[in-house]
């Protein structure tokens, strides 16, 4: 398992004011698997993702990324794991406007101590992966929304990431561009054995996942998929 979440509980505040964002959630994501999380706002989707990515600490439970329990690691060790193994994609891209596409992508590697030249090489390879190598020298405000999201995905997959976490990555994109982003996430999982978790409110986009799980009030209430093997006969007639 790339991601193995066990009995995850997250309570914000305490006493009368306590808000139970998550109540004992179990979720495992295998290598090559893309899982979508759906639920109404306030159901705990984003908290689940931030806990999975080590950006938030659960109140109780375990979060294993590639076998490492984030809840028992030191703050520095979690940060290192986040830089090396976990990629994040946000709705609003979170690119640094003063840096070019290639610089945005290589930044996490350089922060991790890699020399600028090798970081740059990894960044260029990642930009090839997301099909925009020609935009390496452009700044974010010289790109379309779809191109910016591709840069953000390149930053999330650069180096040897194992877990890709996406929070409404298509929220700011038109539907065709959104589909292209989903195709890209799907390909990463299929071809590179990355585990992916996609938070979305959009059923059309969630349908790209192998499994769709539903959160209500911090509890998983159901799951669609995984699909049976593709109908071979139907494929052959196409």
């Amino acid at each position, binding site marked *: 398992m790339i991601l193995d979440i066990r009995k995850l509980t997250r309570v914000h505040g305490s006493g009368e004011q306590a808000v139970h964002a998550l109540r004992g959630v179990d979720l495992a994501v295998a290598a090559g698997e893309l899982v979508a999380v759906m639920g*109404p706002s306030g159901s705990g989707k984003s908290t689940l993702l931030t806990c999975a990515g080590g950006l938030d600490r659960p109140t109780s439970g375990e979060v294993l990324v590639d076998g490492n329990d984030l809840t028992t690691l030191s703050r520095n060790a979690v940060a290192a794991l986040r830089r090396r193994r976990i990629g994040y994609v946000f709705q609003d891209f979170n690119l640094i406007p003063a840096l070019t596409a290639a610089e945005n992508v290589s930044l996490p590697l350089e922060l991790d101590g890699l020399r600028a030249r090798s970081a740059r090489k990894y960044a260029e390879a990642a930009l090839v992966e997301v099909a925009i190598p020609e935009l390496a020298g452009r700044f974010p405000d010289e790109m379309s929304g779809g191109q910016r999201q591709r840069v953000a995905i390149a930053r999330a997959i650069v180096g040897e990431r194992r877990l890709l976490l996406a929070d409404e990555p298509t929220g700011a994109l038109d539907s065709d561009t959104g589909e292209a982003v989903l*195709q890209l996430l*799907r390909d990463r999982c299929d071809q590179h054995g990355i585990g992916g978790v996609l938070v979305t409110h959009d*059923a*059309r986009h*969630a*349908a*790209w*996942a192998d499994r*769709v799980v*539903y959160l209500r009030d911090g509890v998983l*209430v*159901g*799951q*669609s*998929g995984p*699909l049976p093997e*593709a109908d071979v006969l*139907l*494929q052959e*007639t*196409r």
Partner: protein
Amino acid sequence: MSIKHGLLALLRVDAKYGYQLRGEFEAATGATWPLNIGQVYTTLTRLERDGLVRSASGEGNGDGRSMYEITDAGRTELTSWFETPVTRESRPRDELAIKLALALAVPGVNVTSVVQRQRVSTMQALQELTRLKRNSRDGDISWLLVIESMIFAAEAEIRWLDHCEAMLSRHRAAQSKQHDSLQQGGKQSDAGQGQAPNQTEAGAQR
């Protein structure tokens, strides 16, 4: 689904055998509506009876099957089909909407779980459709249009289910608020008459 008009459309260019019609129909719609050969011949027989197609004379292929060609009346029918929009009323009643309406009307049905089960099922269908779309060739435009139509329909159904759920929970919240305020109002007016009536009321509601 109008098999009748589908077959007329396929016959517009030239005469065809039943098995050819079946293959071409499935190719055009991406095997979304698989036809069995029986349906094809039953439909052809009806079309012939109505004068919209005729068996092409002397074109039997040995096993008694004949080729069919479209008549002028058939062409007129086909043109009018393409020119007339499909009305909402001509589609079958929406079983799901009726099911939810009845689930609400009849006591003892857990509507939320009816909604959730439907959502899981429709999402699974949407996942299947998305996989078909992913695996299809770019040039396969008529097939892609058919898949997209089903994707939009499944997506709309899921959005509607989300909407139902949100409406239901608002409705319940409003009801319980109303209920609380009624009870509180009751308590105030009962204050001088002891607690007994309130207890019976609360007991009856459980």
